[in-house]
């Protein structure tokens, strides 16, 4: 059987989600953002929520998310995405409201908004991309930067006595009563991509059902900021990031009730 016989529309098992626009993504080659964008588009398409979805895009690399996924978007001030999502969800409780934030937005300048939105139990979904560096501005140290990790502003590696310890914010949020579902995933292998998709789907369903805040942290790579090739960045993430940011569900109220 020749290739041309296989490549037919009736044999197609995977295609670009139709909600993902044809516009060229500005992300660096190999950036995890692209995979997560694709998953968000797929999940919204599968749930049939194109007309009901409102995304809040952050300041950071994902600032142009509104150019790539064909749904309604809001652009929040730096770090204030969860506050804006709170307003959107309270005014339109029947909509799916989610924020898409990086670690500079969610865990640095927006920590106050992030924690209080989760504590209030707003029925929003938060997708939090943690790549341990400020990618957009040129690879400076972030609160999530690992000890010993070299960045533009800590060229000899992060030191605990000078720069403090890396902030792992998701376990903090899991302790709050307002959160319904808190999980940490990654997108470096096909299996992890599938798991992340299931997590995003659950978070979006929680938002639609008004069940409380869902946080999906995606441990990601920033191969440009880390100065590695995309595949080496994935390996570096497995070797270094997962020790500080282990994958798995941190809180799942629905699963706990079943037991």
């Amino acid at each position: 059987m020749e290739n041309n016989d296989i490549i037919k529309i009736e044999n197609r098992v995977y295609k670009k989600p139709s909600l993902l626009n044809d516009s060229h993504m500005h992300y660096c080659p190999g950036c995890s953002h692209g995979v997560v964008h694709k998953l968000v588009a797929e999940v919204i398409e599968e749930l049939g929520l194109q007309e009901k979805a409102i995304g809040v895009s952050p300041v950071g690399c994902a600032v142009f998310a509104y150019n790539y996924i064909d749904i309604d978007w809001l652009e929040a001030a730096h770090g204030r995405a969860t506050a804006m999502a709170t307003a959107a969800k309270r005014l339109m409780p029947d909509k799916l409201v989610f924020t898409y934030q990086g670690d500079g937005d969610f865990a640095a300048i927006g920590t106050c908004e992030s924690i209080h939105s989760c504590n209030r139990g707003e029925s929003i979904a938060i997708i939090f991309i943690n790549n341990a560096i400020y990618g957009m501005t040129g690879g400076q140290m972030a609160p999530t930067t690992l000890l010993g990790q070299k960045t533009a502003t800590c060229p000899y590696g992060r030191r605990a006595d000078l720069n403090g310890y890396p902030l792992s914010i998701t376990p903090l949020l899991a302790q709050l009563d307002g959160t319904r579902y808190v999980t940490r995933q990654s997108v470096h292998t096909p299996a992890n991509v599938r798991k992340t998709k299931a997590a995003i789907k659950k978070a979006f369903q929680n938002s639609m059902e008004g069940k409380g805040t869902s946080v999906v942290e995606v441990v990601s790579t920033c191969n440009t900021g880390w100065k590695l090739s995309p595949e080496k960045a994935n390996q570096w993430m497995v070797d270094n990031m997962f020790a500080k940011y282990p994958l798995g569900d941190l809180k799942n109220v629905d699963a706990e009730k079943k037991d």
Partner: protein
Amino acid sequence: MAKIRGAVTVNSERCKGCNLCVVACPCDVLDLMKKEVNNRGYHFAYMAAPEKCIGCQSCALVCPDACIEVYRVVEK
């Protein structure tokens, strides 16, 4: 025995040549173009060994730019 055959198409203009699909492929089907580049100057991915493809979608799942479409048939 029924044999599963697969094939992928790569949107070569969208591809940024990040090599993640090549690494993810369990059957060593894909590779990056050695000399040819697309309009943006990236060495895009292509099927170097099309006969080995099983249509498992691994490449498409990890592709950050959603430029891979996967086709699959069961050969009788």
